[in-house]
């Protein structure tokens, strides 16, 4: 099974602002304002295509969420605690799989429900809430129209994060595949050629 990477694939809003977990609210505000200013300037100077619109909308939404969550000690502690809890649960599940203990499925379910909660809360809801915050609205010019467009983009972001994490986790719905990619190429070629058994 692939090891857990250092960044673990979970959203780290401190890293997004170029800070560590000990950063003070003043540092959070300063970093957010500078990064948002740079981003707004960049957006003003590029031609906005459909793809770029989605990309920039997500960038603005994540920056807003980072500031919205980290400027207040209560929301910041709750976010960091849930993130650490999910990471610990992933480790517990991996250990249960490695030791083939009987509670593998329980460990997986507990982890999966916490992961979904974390991604839903901090990969989607927090961004939408931040878009209604006065200070975020002022800095990012986020409005109701952005929110309407963002809902699909944020859902896609949340699910993509889930998939990204899932890729390195133990298989549970199917047995662990041992794919021969050379053989796969031949199968694809035979399908394209219309050859059938």
């Amino acid at each position, binding site marked *: 099974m692939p090891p857990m990477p250092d960044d673990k694939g979970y959203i780290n809003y401190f890293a997004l602002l170029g800070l560590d977990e000990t950063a003070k609210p003043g540092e959070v505000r300063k970093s957010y304002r500078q990064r948002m200013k740079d981003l707004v300037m960049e957006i003003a100077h590029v031609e906005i295509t459909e793809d770029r619109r989605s990309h920039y909308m997500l960038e603005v939404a994540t920056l807003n969420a980072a500031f919205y969550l980290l400027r207040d000690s209560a929301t910041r502690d709750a976010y960091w605690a849930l993130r650490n809890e999910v990471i610990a649960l992933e480790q517990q599940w991996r250990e249960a799989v490695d030791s083939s203990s009987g509670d593998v*499925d329980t460990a997986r379910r507990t982890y999966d429900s916490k992961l979904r909660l974390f991604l839903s809360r901090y990969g989607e809801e927090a961004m939408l809430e931040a878009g209604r915050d006065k200070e975020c609205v002022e800095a990012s010019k986020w409005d109701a129209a952005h929110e309407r467009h963002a809902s*699909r*983009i944020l*859902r*896609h972001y949340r*699910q*993509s994060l889930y*998939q990204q994490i*899932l*890729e390195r986790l133990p*298989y*549970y*719905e*199917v*047995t*662990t*595949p*041992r*794919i021969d*990619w050379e053989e*796969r*190429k031949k*199968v*694809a*070629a035979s*399908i*394209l*050629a*219309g050859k*059938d*058994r």
Partner: protein
Amino acid sequence: MSSSAKQAPAKVVDFEEVIDVIAKAVCEGDIVNFRLLFSPFSPARESSTESFDMPKYAYLLPDEEMMGGPRFAASRALVKRPETVSALRRELEANRPPQLPWELVLELADNAVREEKYSSAAQAYELLRVRARIQREFFVQADAALDAGNVPTAVRGYIIATSLAYDYAAFPEPLPITLDFQTRAFVLHSEYPARPEDCIGLREPKELLQTALAYLLLDAEAAVRLDSRSEEVRLAFLKELALQRDSACETFVARLREACVAADELLKRLQELQSTPALPGEVDAHMDLSKEEDDPRRIPAALLGYFIEEGEWWQYLKELVYKHPAAALLVARQSVGDLEIIVPRYAPDSPVVRALGV
């Protein structure tokens, strides 16, 4: 219940029959039936009250014709392998979510692609976490086929690759992409064309070609992969793509010609009325919809092949593109009095229009 009450005899599952039904699901590339067989109420489980003898499960059993086929034989041989049989027995006896044997899921996915059941294939590859890589492999082989001048194989590769895409923004859970030309055509025609150049079929060939490829591939990014190809190759690709998306495109072309004749007749009628100086108000107010020659709705009906009772323009469009996806590129919305209809509108000398078979 008293202890003397008779207990129903324990259910006995014929495992040879289980092997046959699993082999059928694998052979047909049917992920829904395959997963059903491992559900808690599956007739393949001894703990379930359901049984393959029940008429409602007859569709799960292979018929003689299928059992005589080579693909079924190959699927059955895979299911019948001792290690697979013991894994299947274990999963069907366990009281927990099943862990499906990966070899069967992979074979099922491949068969689903062969059968053009792309949603099923995408779900099976996604379970194995190889969907994106398989998709890339089809793109690579399709591009190689295009390099070699084999356009039909290249188009087939692109259709398979784009059909294996997943929509991670679907609500509430990610879902495979489906053939939704009805929705995409509606988006293409969402704005009323204020100027002739707003009509899709009248666009510049370069722009129309890009729109046509993105629309018929159901994927704008896949269409961008073809950007580096010459216009000649892209037009040949589009021609083949239109054919593979709609094997009955000749029927549509014949109907398109009929609709053009009907549109010309209507135009003459409007000009006739316009040249009558005694008629007060708007010209179309003097048209009698009960007369066939005055009814503009015969144009969309000619396109579709039948009338839709009180049909709006978008109903005609949706039904039309469901049958003939490329039609969305050759029609436009048109107001006639209080009515709004779809009419044929394209540049007949455009190479893109010719590639679409017109």
